[in-house]
């Protein structure tokens, strides 16, 4: 069987050494608070003088419409759905992430290949296969995993407007109703993310902590990482 280093497969036309920015990934399941933490993190990093760009899942120019249509009718097989998401990811990778990294930005990514891999595995994809599909993705400088248990997730989701069909895995389906399916589905997604956290060296943060303290912790970790992995430090910046 053919196996690949994670993140090891080259993409035509992209030389990794020309990517001077930083790829920062925030991972975590649905409703864990990624969006608000990314907003805060962006502000903090901009105050430190970093140029920041953002991207998230299913926002590609090429495939997002097609995916939305396919979801409405629930008309694609599960492998095809996985590959459609991979297409969408690849489009964002090449059109948003890579250009921002070339331009020296901090690319804040609201979930990366890992959530896509976890969702695919929960929907029955062969784990080695789906990891190989995403082996074209560049390795992030760091992955911060906002970790939560399903029991702590439920009250948050209720306060945010209730259970979403897809976030509850109702296409599978995993229980008699949205609530049961949500518990089962999200539980499985979290277990897969936990597994990937070890495999791909995520930094794990407890997402049940108070928001302010978690935001401080995250900002500190990210700014230290950016300093430690600083680019092009040689020579004066301002001509004498």
């Amino acid at each position, binding site marked *: *069987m*053919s196996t*690949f280093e994670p993140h090891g*497969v*080259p*993409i*035509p*036309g992209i030389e990794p050494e020309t990517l001077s920015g930083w790829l920062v990934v925030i991972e975590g399941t649905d409703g864990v608070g990624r969006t608000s933490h990314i907003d805060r993190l962006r502000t903090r990093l901009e105050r430190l003088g970093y140029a920041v760009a953002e991207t998230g899942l299913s926002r590609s*120019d*090429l*495939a997002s*419409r*097609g995916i939305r*249509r*396919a979801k409405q*009718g629930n*008309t*694609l*097989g*599960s*492998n*095809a759905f*996985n*590959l*459609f998401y*991979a*297409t969408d990811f*690849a*489009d964002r*990778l*090449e059109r948003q992430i890579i250009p921002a990294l070339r331009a020296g930005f901090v690319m804040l990514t609201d979930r990366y290949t890992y959530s896509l891999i976890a969702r695919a595995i929960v929907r029955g994809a*062969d784990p080695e*296969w789906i990891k*190989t*599909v995403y*082996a*074209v993705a560049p390795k992030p400088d760091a992955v911060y995993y906002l970790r939560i248990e399903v029991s702590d997730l439920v009250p948050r989701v209720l306060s945010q407007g209730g259970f979403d069909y897809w976030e509850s895995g109702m296409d599978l389906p995993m229980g008699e109703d949205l609530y049961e399916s949500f518990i089962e589905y999200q539980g499985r997604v979290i277990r897969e993310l936990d597994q990937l956290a070890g495999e791909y060296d995520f930094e794990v943060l407890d997402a049940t902590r108070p928001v302010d303290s978690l935001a401080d912790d995250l900002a500190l970790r990210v700014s230290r990482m950016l300093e430690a992995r600083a680019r092009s430090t040689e020579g004066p910046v301002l001509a004498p």
Partner: protein
Amino acid sequence: MSHSAYGTLARQYPGRLFIVEGIDGSGKSTQLTLLAEWLRGLGYPVVFSEWNSSPVVKATTSRGKRRKLLTPLTFSLIHATDFSDRVEREIVPSLKAGAIVLADRYVYTAFARDVVRGLDPGWVRSLYRFAPVPSRAFYFRVPLEVALRRILSARPKLKWYEAGMDLGLHSSAAESYRIFQSRILVEYEKLVGEYGLAVMDATKAVEIQQSAMRAAIRPHLTSLRKEAKSLEHV
């Protein structure tokens, strides 16, 4: 790197899968149509599956092509998505039901094109691990000039990706097409040995090719169920 990855996630089914491959103008579609007629005449249930035809994915592919949004990577993945949808909804169910599935182009088209576009050969093969392996795969070998003459005389307007214009090989579409097709030929020749494709001499007369194809397929038909007779014959 092992290339046996393709097919490792697929199972065995009661039906049969025959596929044709070759560059544009090799005459493979004509041969497949004639084969279908023959098989139907013998009473077998026959299902056709064409490359790039999944209704749900097609809109995205067309949009990507029309607006030139596709890179080698997304070109590869959207075609794998399309193919995967057809495998799950068309090819596998038909094979399970005991039908003969005839595919005009199969994974080898992707193996050839995507690699010419610069993607890693092992990675492309792994993408298609879910694809059932054909009972018999035919490769229609044709000299480049013969294929080009057939295509360029019939179809004056070449499409952007079809001509490989995305690779920046040449500013003229016809010239780019020529270079692109010649590179695809090289990849196909590698696949012949790697996957044991049955090579057809596509310069021979249509009926001679067809009888060779039928002879090659006949041994695969033993113990395959024919269609139920209509009620009045029962």
